[in-house]
């Protein structure tokens, strides 16, 4: 058992932080088209194709990818600990289903995706992500109500209600998809596949605020999270207010997931694979595991999205395909390697 100390903390997070910075810079110059940096910086404020590719088409999308990769991975870590289940991932909490349903209702009833404010000077209002976020909040309250018994959230009920809620929502989405017209149905399917495509820094900032606040709330609970993986009773005996911890974690991660899914759609496997991969490297201490997973998730999604843009250029692949191609085999490999032992949490 390796013990957490300040040196390891700084070393791991420092290396990951440097890798993340390098990834952001490298990915900003990778894409189906070549960008000339000096030309982009030369006349930044006139309409300049290189600058637009770099600062409007690529950079916001990379920053969004980092936030969502990191947020998903961090949520995966805490949900796996909270639910005591190595399969737990952000998609499992019904919030993602609620966000999808909200987004699709938005796509159907507010077809105008965005309304620029003052000619785009103040950014834009995007109806569909807004509707998705409202959907996420509603489903969060609903699931909270269903998982709450005698004043406490039961992880078992949380898991079951989340899975059932998502399947139920999937059925509603399929129903809506079969009654709307053909082209709308195509649009819905594309939206469901998930994408990091964005040019709005406002949206990116909104996601970063949710993800960053949520992350620090979760990180502050690192020690309690360590104890809760020993089992609820043990944690209770060791002085963790499990009721409160569970509620706080549920609310914090739900808000993060709701915000993320409402902008990017369902991007699977980041929240499942990164936490397991980082446990192999850093061990299971959540004080280190959480920031390390956040940084690694950011790096991973940053590269996955770059691959999605480049592999079949000029066509763009849904980024969820790339994450699944890496995540699926990795998870099976982990199961195989661990043999009969349970996957560590």
């Amino acid at each position, binding site marked *: 058992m390796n013990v957490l100390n300040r040196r390891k903390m700084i070393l791991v997070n420092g290396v990951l932080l440097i890798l993340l910075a390098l990834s952001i810079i490298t990915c900003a110059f990778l*894409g*189906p*088209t*070549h960008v000339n940096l000096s030309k982009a910086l030369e006349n930044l404020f006139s*309409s*300049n*194709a290189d*600058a*637009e*590719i770099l600062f*409007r*088409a*690529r950079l916001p999308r990379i920053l969004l990818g980092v936030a969502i990769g990191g947020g998903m991975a961090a949520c995966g870590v805490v949900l796996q600990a909270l639910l005591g289940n190595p399969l737990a991932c952000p998609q499992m909490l019904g919030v993602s289903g609620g966000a999808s349903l909200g987004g699709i209702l938005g*796509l*159907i009833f507010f*077809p*105008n*995706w*965005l*309304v*620029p404010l003052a*000619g*785009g000077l103040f950014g834009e209002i995007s109806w*569909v992500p807004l509707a998705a976020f409202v959907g996420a909040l509603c489903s969060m309250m609903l699931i909270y109500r269903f998982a709450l018994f005698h004043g406490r959230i039961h992880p078992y009920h949380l898991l079951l209600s989340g899975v059932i809620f998502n399947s139920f929502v999937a059925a509603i989405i399929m129903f809506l998809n*079969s009654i*709307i*017209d*053909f*082209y*709308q*149905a*195509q*649009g*819905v399917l*594309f*939206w469901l596949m998930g*994408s990091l*495509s964005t*040019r709005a820094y406002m949206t990116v900032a909104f996601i970063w605020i949710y993800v960053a606040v949520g992350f620090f709330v979760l990180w502050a609970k690192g020690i309690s999270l360590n104890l809760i993986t020993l089992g609820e009773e043990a944690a209770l005996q060791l002085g963790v207010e499990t009721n409160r911890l569970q509620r706080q974690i549920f609310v914090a991660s739900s808000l993060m997931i709701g915000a993320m899914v409402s902008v990017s759609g369902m991007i699977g496997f980041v929240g499942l694979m990164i936490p397991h991969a980082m446990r192999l490297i850093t061990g299971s201490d959540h004080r280190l595991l959480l920031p390390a997973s956040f940084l690694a998730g950011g790096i991973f999604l940053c590269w996955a999205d770059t691959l999605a*843009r480049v592999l079949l*250029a*000029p*066509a*763009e*692949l*849904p980024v969820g395909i790339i994450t699944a191609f890496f995540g699926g085999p990795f998870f099976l490999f982990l199961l195989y390697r661990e043999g009969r032992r349970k996957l560590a949490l």
Partner: protein
Amino acid sequence: MKRVHAQIAGWAGFFLVFVALSVTHAATPPQRIVSLAPSVTEMLFALGFGARVVGVTTYCDYPAEAKKLPKIGSFVNPSLEAIAARRPDLVIGVNDANQSVKAREIAQLGLKISLVTLNNVDEIFRAIKSVAGWIGDAEAGEKLVRKITQQFDEVKKRVESAPRRRTLLVVGLRPLVAAGGGSYINELIMAAGGDNIANNAAQPWLNLPDEYVVSRAPQVIIEAGMGSERGQGGINWYDLKSIPAVKERRIYAYPSDKILRPGPRIGEGLEEIARMIHPECFAESKDRPGKGSRCERSQP
């Protein structure tokens, strides 16, 4: 081995039924036709066989009479029961991955089914002729194809002297879904004097990253989506001012099925997109073709 035999027997049976039905159909032209696609429905009506259509899909909304006909399910998922209940003597579908499977099931019900292939303009013309032939009026098919060919020729004549304009045709904005090189729509853009910036992709439809659009700098953007982006014309692009289409306000909302459906209205649709790509070629009165006029001089 047994399974292989069974499969061969099955196919042979399928073939025999097919041949038998083809022979019987030769004797009496079909009177009760079910269409499994909006494009096929449009062909049937344009050929003058509208009165014989007894079932259409939920997406068949043109011409208006087609809307009132009994529905047999959607284009993607037609209901076998509903088709059989219409007691058709001919079912016409589209030869794609989905409907070719359905066709086998429909044939197993003892119904006659024929499929048309609609991947490029030539195939659309051939399909119109085949449909007319199946119904026993090949002349109607020839006539309709002549009419559409004429519409094509007229547009080509008007734009032939004009320089090709880089064009992007999208059906969805978030994510950006554009017509690629592998569809008849690419041919329509070419015929309208455009140059599809996504034609180096083999897919009929593809999701394009924004940066690709910026780098290829389209001069005309046509937003042809019917659904989610209704009436948004151009708002999506306001921040990418280096794109000539954005700078020169050549972004058109074109909420029409005419070119999105591989049917008899592609000729009309072609003229409409040609007017967007080369408005200067259509500036003068309609009875004077545009050759040698303003069209030649004006540069993008």
